[in-house]
């Protein structure tokens, strides 16, 4: 994903340039976003380093430069050279500037030593206004029905550089609307400003040259290759990078206006890559996942498979009630306090080795750590269930568990995940294991059949959705989806990343780490940490692989630990 890391870093050669009178030092070259080879630093990057915002549509830091929207036009000057090829000096000792007679596009013009970039001159403002007026000539101005409204660059720059009224009196060119590009994308060609970001993304990043522009002049139209569907696993990223509302997601189409969405930093749980995401939610409902930039993991992208894998959170049959053997007889839900007291008493009385624990690699590091602690106290065998699918060269990992490394590092399972299940089955068969604790896995499907589970004295299950195992459980503890709690995952490369809570849990469901903390405290008799920060910091002390980490030190993009 970040080839720049594999290829040798560019020489630490720095150039000093001035942006609007402020001097900044920027590297002479930067890695090419695709190949990683050093390429000259451009003016727009120097402006970004100086915290000066240059409006742009077609430029994207992670894509090759196209330079076609002309929105980033700026004026600049270079130090003047005399006939002797030496710098001409002003009377006050500063180098005399030779201002370029013509403007240049900041996204594609390399910087040179001593260059001065002017982004706030009246001429630059006029150029931006002119470019914007041209872009709006054939734009349908249908913001009220456009899904991009609220996060649209055309809207934003129109506020800054647009005119209140159009000078264009001729009829607009009407292009195709609501074009079905593929299984997940709808295209509105009228809104397209032909920046070609989507074309470059799908060609250079996704490696699927599916999109292109046909026709000429004001009839130029974005389209998929004739007879082909735009259906690779990364199509929805084009919706994110589309600066206007031309490419829209079928899943999010007409669902909610973006300004209502609460944005929560989270992690995608669909595979071991652990893409950083932003969860958009409103009033307890998840509306969308969007990738969040993290150059160490997913850059700006995520796959469609992970992005659309959130609907199960709102399934009607979510587990929302605590159940215990007593409550089943009485026909009403048990209370957390009652169920936890019974379970902890039961576990405390259990002879060493008579308990087995199956955790899920979809649980957080903290939860796995607590389960391991419980297992150590009870002399219990632990394992987890592997989950795999087809991976790709980009982001999708073949390991579909979001926290497989966490399960290994906390000692829940060995490198061979699921290797001890058969052994556990034999122990249950023999009667050596009489209590089984299952978290978030349908073990009936994974080698511990219903007949085998029937031999147990006690089956304690925590899950989010009902399955064959939850039906057999004596104690059923409803858990939370990751968007309903906080925690950390360790991705395939060992990056420990935290995620925050977006919505409230359903019904009586509680975050697993919360009730596991209570359970562990009661069984071991040690008072643990009742807050997640403390729990994480304690885990970082006790689990060797996480030594030196702290919740506060994880930041928004995580920290890599050695595996």
């Amino acid at each position, binding site marked *: 994903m970040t080839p720049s890391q594999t290829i040798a870093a560019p020489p630490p050669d720095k150039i000093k340039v001035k942006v609007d009178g402020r001097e900044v030092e920027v590297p002479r070259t930067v890695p090419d976003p695709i190949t990683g080879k050093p390429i000259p630093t451009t003016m727009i990057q120097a402006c970004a380093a100086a915290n000066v915002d240059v409006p742009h549509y077609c430029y994207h830091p992670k894509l090759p430069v196209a330079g076609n929207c002309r929105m980033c036009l700026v004026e600049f000057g270079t130090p003047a050279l005399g006939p002797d090829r030496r710098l001409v000096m002003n009377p006050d000792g500063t180098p005399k500037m030779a201002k370029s007679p013509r403007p240049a596009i900041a996204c594609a013009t390399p910087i040179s030593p001593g260059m001065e970039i002017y982004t706030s001159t009246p001429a630059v403002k006029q150029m931006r206004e002119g470019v914007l007026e041209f872009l709006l000539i054939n734009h*349908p101005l249908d*913001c*009220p*029905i456009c899904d991009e*409204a609220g996060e649209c660059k055309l809207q934003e720059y129109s506020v800054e550089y647009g005119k209140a009224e159009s000078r264009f009196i001729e*009829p*607009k*060119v*009407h*292009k*195709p*609307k*609501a*074009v079905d590009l593929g299984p997940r994308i709808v295209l509105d060609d009228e809104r397209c400003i032909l920046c070609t970001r989507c074309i470059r993304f799908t060609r250079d990043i996704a490696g699927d040259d599916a999109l292109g522009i*046909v*026709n*000429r002049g004001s*009839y130029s*139209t974005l*389209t998929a290759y*004739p007879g082909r569907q735009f259906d690779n696993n990364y199509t929805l990223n084009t919706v994110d990078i589309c600066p206007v509302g031309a490419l829209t997601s*079928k*899943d999010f*189409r*007409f*669902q*909610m*206006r973006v*300004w*209502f969405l609460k944005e929560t930093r989270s992690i995608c749980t669909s595979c071991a890559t652990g893409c950083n995401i932003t969860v958009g939610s409103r009033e307890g409902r998840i509306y969308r996942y969007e990738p969040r930039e993290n150059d160490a993991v997913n850059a700006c992208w995520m796959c469609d498979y992970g992005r659309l894998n959130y609907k199960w959170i709102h399934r009607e049959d979510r587990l929302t009630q605590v159940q215990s053997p007593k409550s089943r007889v009485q026909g009403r839900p048990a209370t957390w306090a009652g169920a936890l007291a019974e379970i902890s008493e039961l576990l405390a009385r259990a002879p060493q080795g008579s308990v087995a624990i199956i955790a899920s690699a979809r649980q957080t590091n903290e939860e796995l750590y607590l389960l391991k602690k419980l297992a150590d106290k009870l002399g219990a065998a632990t394992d987890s269930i592997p989950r795999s699918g087809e991976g790709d060269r980009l982001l999708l990992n073949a390991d579909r568990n979001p926290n497989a490394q966490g399960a290994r590092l906390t000692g829940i399972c060995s490198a061979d995940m699921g290797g001890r299940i058969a052994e556990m089955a034999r122990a249950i068969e023999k009667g050596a294991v009489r209590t089984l604790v299952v978290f978030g896995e349908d073990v009936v499907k994974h080698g511990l059949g219903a007949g085998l589970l029937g031999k147990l004295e006690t089956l304690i299950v925590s899950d989010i959705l009902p399955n064959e195992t939850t039906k057999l459980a004596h104690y059923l503890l409803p858990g939370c989806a990751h968007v309903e709690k906080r925690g950390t995952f360790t991705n395939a490369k060992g990056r420990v990343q935290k995620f925050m809570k977006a919505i409230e849990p359903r019904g009586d469901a509680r975050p697993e780490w919360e009730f596991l903390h209570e359970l562990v405290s009661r069984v071991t008799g040690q008072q643990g940490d009742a807050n997640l920060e403390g729990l994480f910091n304690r885990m970082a002390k006790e689990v060797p692989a996480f030594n030196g980490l702290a919740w506060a030190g994880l930041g928004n993009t995580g920290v890599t630990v050695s595996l």
Partner: protein
Amino acid sequence: MIVKRKKLNLWERLYLPAMIGGFKVTLRHFFKKKVTLQYPEEKWVVPEGYRGAPYLVRDQDGNTKCVSCQLCEFVCPPKAIRIMPPGPAGPVADRPNAEKIPLEFEINMLRCIFCGFCQEVCPEEAIFLMSDYSLTGRSRQEMIYDKEKLLALGGEHAGIQKWKKKAEEAGAQESFPVKI
């Protein structure tokens, strides 16, 4: 501070002249035009531009004007407006080119403060504060007006039909250079 009470003069101490003066005012009003309204038998004529209850309107072709942009929901200070957008599989807009129409549109008239922000912010001229000022209901639920009720109460509001105009303009255009 102590204010000295002013001593009344003879005329003031007589008391009757002041009484007669008062009666005169009363008597004058007996013969003037009466201003009291016998509400609710008699109803007040609502002046033009009065800001009463907000209702949804239809255009001159009888189509729903609202496109579910949710700006009124956003701007509403007491959060009286709730809109359910149609989603990808929702109802198709009445007007072929408008694409979007609310699945449900509710105004809680108990919450509404008749401020008129919704009318001001509406890009489609689909919601107007009308002349109704006395809204009653027998339950809280009854005071939440749904889309059907709001459209029925709002009636028709003619005006520029921009979506229709766009559709006509697109139809009049020579066939697009290359069929995609």
